[in-house]
């Protein structure tokens, strides 16, 4: 069995109750459930944008509090629902993270643009000139610029139209495989869950209802709750 990257043991925070699961190397975990179930809160516990009230989170078998916070956030990258780009050029956005750690070389910019399928000459464009889809690509590239091992995705395509969603998904899958990333992703789309995920964690009212292989969960749900949720979505 591959190495455990994250272990959540009986974690409580706000709506979340006794959350327990393990995220292994190169897992692509889909966190899903009704609105208000605590999905985003859960995602923020992975890189300490939030902390549990009770329970423990282990990262590489060590309590997460023992890591230097900026370094932890560097290796556990988060892509937010909205791009929230800094009001500069595309290049400035890509450099932001690595520059904090004195780890930026200009050559990386081109590779990043290639990952997210944007033309190189966009690097000197102001972010105000970009379309919604392009902005989300830059946001993704900005997180990847830090060379994270784990990628957290908080509904990264929810603000985009269908054509853009499909294109970004393809890029995502390609770059996750290429960089052997471990992923935790919140999504509302069960089709997206199936295309990107390997594992699934279904939560309702802050509790884990089902956890396992994503195809198993989506095709043969064990619980009434998940069956009903899938029926509705």
């Amino acid at each position: 069995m591959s190495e455990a990257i994250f272990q959540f043991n009986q974690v409580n925070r706000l709506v979340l109750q006794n959350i327990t699961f393990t995220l292994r190397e190169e897992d692509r975990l889909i966190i899903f459930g009704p609105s208000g179930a605590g999905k985003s809160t859960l995602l923020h516990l992975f890189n300490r944008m939030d902390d549990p009230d009770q329970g423990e989170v282990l990262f590489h078998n060590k309590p997460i509090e023992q890591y230097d916070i900026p370094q932890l956030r560097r290796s556990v990258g988060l892509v937010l629902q909205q791009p929230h780009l800094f009001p500069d050029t595309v290049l400035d956005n890509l450099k932001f993270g690595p520059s904090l750690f004195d780890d930026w070389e200009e050559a990386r910019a081109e590779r990043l643009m290639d990952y997210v399928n944007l033309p190189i000459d966009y690097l000197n464009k102001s972010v105000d000139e970009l379309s919604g889809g392009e902005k989300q690509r830059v946001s993704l590239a900005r997180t990847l610029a830090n060379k994270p091992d784990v990628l957290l995705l908080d509904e990264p395509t929810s603000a985009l139209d269908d054509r853009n969603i499909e294109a970004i998904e393809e890029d995502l899958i390609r770059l996750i495989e290429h960089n052997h990333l471990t992923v935790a992703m919140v999504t509302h789309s069960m089709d997206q869950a199936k295309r990107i995920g390997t594992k699934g964690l279904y939560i309702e009212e802050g509790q884990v209802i089902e956890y396992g292989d994503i195809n198993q969960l989506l095709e043969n749900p064990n619980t009434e709750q998940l069956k009903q949720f899938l029926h509705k979505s």
Partner: protein
Amino acid sequence: MERDIPTYSLLLLIVFVMIPFTIAYIYQLGLKKEIIWSTVRGTLQLFLIGLILTYLFDLPPLVGIPIMLSVMILVATFHARKKGKELPYIFITILVGLIGVEIIVLSMWLGFGMISFTPEEVIPMSGMVIGNSMVAMGLALERLKSEFEQNRGKLLAALSLGATPKHAAHMSIKKTLNAALIPNIDQLKTIGLVQLPGMMTGLILGGVAPIIAIKYQLVISISIFSSVSLSAIFISMVMYRFFFNKQMQLLNLQDIKKNG
């Protein structure tokens, strides 16, 4: 010879007050009470200050000046803290800031022989510096809060990329300082062209030669400009920290209140 305005002419000022009052009445602005109250209050305050100043000017400078400066700084602190009452240590921070600014400005004035240590010179000049610093701190606090509110997403993005609170807040602080300083820069640029500044007007009315009035005005304008900048920078640099916790997580105003 000293000029004076006869008391009966002063009473005719009521005509000027009637103008905004009538406008408020016609357009039903709901400001009628406010206008009357602020006029009465302002008048009483000024006469009271006149009496106090007359008394203080008779005291030895080493007694009168510290008393008046303390009162001015305390009142300014109480007033400015309203703009940031959600933030912890706001009173003491503003107080320390205003005292610091006053000490710096006063040492320069006295050290370079620009003014003498008499209540007639120190108190009005300090009043202008403290008053403007108070406004600058208030503006900076309001702006800082709205920057943090509006840019939550960008701040979260910066933190999640590994930025420390200082780094993440850099952009918001920059904008706050810009907003707090630009009115002063503009004012300095057009000084004397659009309006003769208050102090100069006062001196000229009092019979001082314009060229001397200008010298005093220069001292006070530049002093106000630098103390306003100092105040805005000081309050922003101290206060931004409270928007984050020790775990480098972004707080919202309600949480700050709870923690503080």
